[in-house]
């Protein structure tokens, strides 16, 4: 069989072309060993299983999880033959797999980001009370999304939801969610709050929300964030970095929007209270008016009584001075000249008498 004669470099180039054609990207699961970071930017580690081992290389800025020897991971990588003849994988993405590795990666990254202050309570912002415009980052096929929209519609109206349809699990999910967050943060018409939601899932599914770049994007969002990742127990780092966490997508809708039934009851109560206050004050004023009327009435009565008493007293005095009263006591009125032999008129209480004066003498 004839074959072309190649130089070493040509062979390496040809091999790489073949690999690029046959295996542009591969997904490989294995255990990390000999992990190290060179010059603060280059990451090297081996990926191994029971019988085999492959060298891996990636740029530090692409490493979005915490990694250490012994962790089980899945890498998305391109195989390559280096110019030194070494076969290796150039890794584009890596994620931990299996409960143990996921937990370990989580703990390492949590410690690192906690020290940076990303999860401090002082950084948390209040969500708007009744937002008019809300950004939603979710998969529109997911049950969690449907629950969120339904509960929101039941609770409140007049809200505009702008939905970024993304994958919420899988290797590309974190990049899609980051892209959606950056979209909302750079849009001309800003939303008032960004809600990131997905339904419950396994630890592997939720590992997306422990991606370092995603966690940092949420922490740096200038728009307040509410995360409703559907599980009750484990909290992801993205939730720790968000301004508010909901236990489920439905709970996210409950946190985001008030329940109009509560508002309607409150309004009814407020109106009743106003009516009650009005009636109470009206009753009070009427009572005051009645009291005042009584007082005035009493005063008038007292005044009249005093006048009557005074009047009676005057009448008594006048009666005492009445000439008839004097006459009734036996006195008489004499009219005429008091000279001897003159005729005088004498008026008693009951008689009119004519009499002749016999004599008139001074009393001693």
């Amino acid at each position, binding site marked *: 069989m004839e074959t072309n004669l190649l130089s070493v470099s040509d062979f390496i180039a040809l091999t790489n072309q073949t690999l690029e054609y046959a295996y542009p990207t591969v997904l490989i699961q294995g255990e990390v060993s000999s992990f190290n970071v060179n010059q603060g930017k280059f990451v090297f580690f081996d990926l191994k299983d029971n019988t085999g081992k492959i060298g891996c290389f990636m740029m530090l800025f692409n490493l979005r999880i915490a990694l250490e020897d012994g962790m089980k991971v899945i890498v998305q990588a391109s195989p390559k033959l280096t110019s030194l003849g070494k076969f290796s994988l150039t890794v584009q993405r890596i994620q931990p797999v299996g409960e143990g590795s996921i937990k370990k990666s989580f703990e390492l990254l949590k410690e690192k980001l906690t020290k940076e202050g990303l999860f401090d309570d002082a950084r948390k912002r209040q969500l708007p009370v009744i937002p008019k415009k809300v950004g939603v980052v979710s998969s529109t096929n997911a049950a969690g999304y449907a629950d969120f929209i339904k509960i929101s*519609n039941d609770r*409140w*109206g*007049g809200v*505009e939801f702008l939905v970024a349809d993304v994958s919420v699990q899988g290797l590309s999910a974190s990049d899609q969610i980051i*892209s959606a967050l950056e979209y909302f943060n750079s849009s001309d018409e800003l939303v008032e709050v960004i809600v990131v939601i997905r339904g419950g899932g396994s630890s592997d599914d939720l590992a997306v929300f422990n991606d370092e770049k995603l966690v940092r994007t949420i922490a740096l969002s200038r728009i307040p964030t509410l995360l409703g990742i559907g599980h009750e127990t484990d909290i992801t780092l993205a939730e720790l970095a968000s301004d508010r966490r909901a236990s489920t997508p439905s709970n996210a809708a409950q946190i985001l929007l008030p329940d109009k039934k509560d508002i*309607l009851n409150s309004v009814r109560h*407020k*109106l009743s209270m106003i009516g009650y206050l009005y009636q109470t004050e*009206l009753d009070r004023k009427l009572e005051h008016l009645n009291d005042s009327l009584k007082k005035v009435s009493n005063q008038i009565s007292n005044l009249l009584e005093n006048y009557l008493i005074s009047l009676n007293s005057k009448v008594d005095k006048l009666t005492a001075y009445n000439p008839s009263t004097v006459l009734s006591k036996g006195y008489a009125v004499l009219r005429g000249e008091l000279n001897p032999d003159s005729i005088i008129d004498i008026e008693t209480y009951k008689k009119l008498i004519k009499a002749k004066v016999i004599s008139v003498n001074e009393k001693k």
Partner: protein
Amino acid sequence: MKKNDIQSKIEELDKMIEWFESDQFSINDALIKYEKAEILAGEIKTELNEIKNKVTVIKKRFDES
């Protein structure tokens, strides 16, 4: 950004309660204010029961790098 109308009306209703509880309360103005409160409550109820949410899925694709 335009303030939420319902929220404004609820705040106005709260202010009316404060007025009824305050020293500024007068019988002369009370009836007018009570009638206004009834109208406000009716408007809030109508808006809450009738107004709907709007959901728009953004056309942009987020799975493209």
